[in-house]
């Protein structure tokens, strides 16, 4: 790196830095993944906007509205299952901090089981609606409701697969830089699902119930 730019011969100048710099791989990847998660947040913004404009009375075309079928305490149980799953993953990351592999695996296993419980409750809820004849084709309002809630459930589904993959990688590969970085990005992903769920629960389920 020349300190006098005017003396550089353009025909001989090196245009790239050949020296090796130590590079914080984990931080670079987690920031990149965080930006990706924010764009995932924009996906939810469009779905919330669609639900907002399709939750008027005429949007339901005279058919059922969330006020007819939402059971707040049932969905509250889903909320607690997801929050406990997120808490378990947090405890797993605390075990990682102390290099406690069995603590990490136990925490991730608890997060997985509670995430499965959330998904079972969601599938049971959706099949209950289907049994009542309420499907995605019932009305525009129901399309927006089901798409928004099930896109969130799809995030949980893929997160559960990711938890299983990371449990395997921790057991096979141990605490390498790649595995620790992936555990951190999975932590962001899993915790963001709880944050999105707060919006889904309050502004779709609870508000739908009182509208």
């Amino acid at each position: 790196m020349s300190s006098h730019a005017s003396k550089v011969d353009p025909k001989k100048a090196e245009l790239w830095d050949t020296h090796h710099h130590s590079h914080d791989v984990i931080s670079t990847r987690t920031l990149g993944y965080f930006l990706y998660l924010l764009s995932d947040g924009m996906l939810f913004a469009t779905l919330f906007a669609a639900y907002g404009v399709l939750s008027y009375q005429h949007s339901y075309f005279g058919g059922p509205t969330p006020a007819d079928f939402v059971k707040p305490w049932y969905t509250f149980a889903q909320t607690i299952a997801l929050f406990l799953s997120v808490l378990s993953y947090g405890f797993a990351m605390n075990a990682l901090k102390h290099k406690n592999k069995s603590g990490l695996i136990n925490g991730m296993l608890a997060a997985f089981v509670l995430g499965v419980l959330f998904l079972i409750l969601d599938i049971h809820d959706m099949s209950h609606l289907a049994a009542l004849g309420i499907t995605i084709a019932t009305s525009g309002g129901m399309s927006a409701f089901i798409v928004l809630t099930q896109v969130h459930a799809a995030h949980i589904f893929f997160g559960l697969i990711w938890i299983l993959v990371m449990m395997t990688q921790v057991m096979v590969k141990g605490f390498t830089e790649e595995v620790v970085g992936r555990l951190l990005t999975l932590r962001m992903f899993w915790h963001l699902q709880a944050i999105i769920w707060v919006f889904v629960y309050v502004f779709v389920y609870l508000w739908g119930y009182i509208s």
Partner: protein
Amino acid sequence: MSHGAADPTMHPEVQMSTSKGYFLGFAISAFLMLVATFLVTSHSVPPFGLLMVISVCAGIAVIAQIYFLLHIDISEHNIWNTVALVLFIPLFLITIGLTWWMFSQLYLRTMDMSAMSRMNMGTAVHSTANPSSSSMENMPNMHMTADAAQ
């Protein structure tokens, strides 16, 4: 962002985890969701006030989760995550807010809401879509006043 690269578990993003922080994030958000659910099911607050209260509950729960779970703060290590999130929030709100505003104005100017309601109640187009009356025991007539709340 200087730290020993030899042991990845010593990375600051691993070391910033605390069980107390994760538990606080859980406890605060779970309590606020409990309050919101209780208020909604008890029918003790009028709808508009109820919407305000549950919105505040959601706002505090989200802030607590962002702080305690995502570790968003102004420390040197996290500042770029925080900047990205702060710049993201207006995009998120504008996307939802402007879309909702545009369509609410459109409906206001193009539709006769009262005629729409009468038409929908008169013609049972989706009779198979209506749930049985037993499933509607909670608030059987609420859907007829939904546009008043919007």
